[in-house]
């Protein structure tokens, strides 16, 4: 009696295990998902200017780090708040974006009187935003400048200034209303 019961227990559970294991193995083979598309998707979201402000050697490595959870979604200063939101959405994480203020957009500006035409900035600019040739005064094409400050750092005469982009009547828009309609109760002990 006991032996029979024991054997049947052993047998039935083992069979169950074997069958289910086989099924799962089969399923795994036939329902396999190819490689991580996530990384590529994330890289597509990043600005792609390879500026390195995030502390990674460029957007590719930054994307790898993001995909593996090794970097916060708020890592990329040029991308600002909008990018952080997009990344958070993509990665399914929630972040407190209150701290991620969009910093004012800066672009490089060359003081022509000081530029000696050394072409150092020209060579460094990752987006070819600086135009000019050797021994010629250089100028920045503001629409292409990402404000990465690389030219600013290399300029031997410090003739490059990072200037905030000024709004025009075309780009100005109404500020968000002050939240005094609903005080968020932030005064509470927390």
């Amino acid at each position, binding site marked *: 009696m*006991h032996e029979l019961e024991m054997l049947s227990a052993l047998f039935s559970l083992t069979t169950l*295990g*074997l069958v289910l*294991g086989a099924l799962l193995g089969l399923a795994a083979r036939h329902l396999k998902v190819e490689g991580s598309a996530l990384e590529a998707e994330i890289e597509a979201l990043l600005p792609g200017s390879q500026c390195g402000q995030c502390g990674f050697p460029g957007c590719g490595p930054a994307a790898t780090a993001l995909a593996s959870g090794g970097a916060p979604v708020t890592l990329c200063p040029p991308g600002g708040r909008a990018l952080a939101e997009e990344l958070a959405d993509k990665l399914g994480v929630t972040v407190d974006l209150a701290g991620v203020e969009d910093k004012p957009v800066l672009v490089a500006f060359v003081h022509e009187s000081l530029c000696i035409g050394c072409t150092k900035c020209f060579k460094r600019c990752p987006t070819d935003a600086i135009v000019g040739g050797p021994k010629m005064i250089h100028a920045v094409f503001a629409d292409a400048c990402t404000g990465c400050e690389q030219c600013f750092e290399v300029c031997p005469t410090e003739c490059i200034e990072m200037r905030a982009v000024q709004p025009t009547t075309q780009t100005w828009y109404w500020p968000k209303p002050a939240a005094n309609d609903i005080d968020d109760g932030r005064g509470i002990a927390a």
Partner: protein
Amino acid sequence: MKGVLEPRFRQRIGYQAGLLGGFAAMAAALLMMGNLGTSDSIAQRQQEDLVASLTQVIPTALYDESLLSNNLVITSSEGSATTVYRAVRNGQVTAVAYEVSGAGYAGEIRLLLGVDAGGKTLGVRVISHAETPGLGDKIELAKDDWILDFNGRSLDNPDDAGWHVRKDGGIFDQFSGATITPRAVVAAVHEGLRYFRVHSGEMLARIPDPATNAVTGG
């Protein structure tokens, strides 16, 4: 999880199956041993529990054999079966205990009713109920001794008119704000006593029944 690092053989279906099968076998073996080691004492503990609740409605003085050794199963005409536990002293059935139930405010109230051979209530205890705490749960002995009011009652004490809560003209107290619960309990006990009157013949006649005698316990 590890993808490329996994050795080839691991991706075989046989390996998966074997793994799960192996673990299943191991688990089964472990549990079997566990079961082997514990089943007897578990069964014993469960009987002890049963006896403990039976002794609440049947005084120890009334029996000298195990309360579990003289069970009787009465099957009603509708097919529902009632297990009657019987107290036997000197070969005589001195008291019986069985389950009765009533419809309370929030579902069934199950009670264990002990009756002596003369049809007098020895005790009533609640087995399970879902009445409102603080309102209907005064039928538990732990909350209130209202349930002790049934001790010593019988079908003649009081008479049929008396077997109601006060509000309905009977002699039993209701709880303030909750009449449905006591009404249900009173009705259930009353019904239980009538059941005893109907079946007292079977219950009190001691027919040795080896099958139910199989288990013995303290």
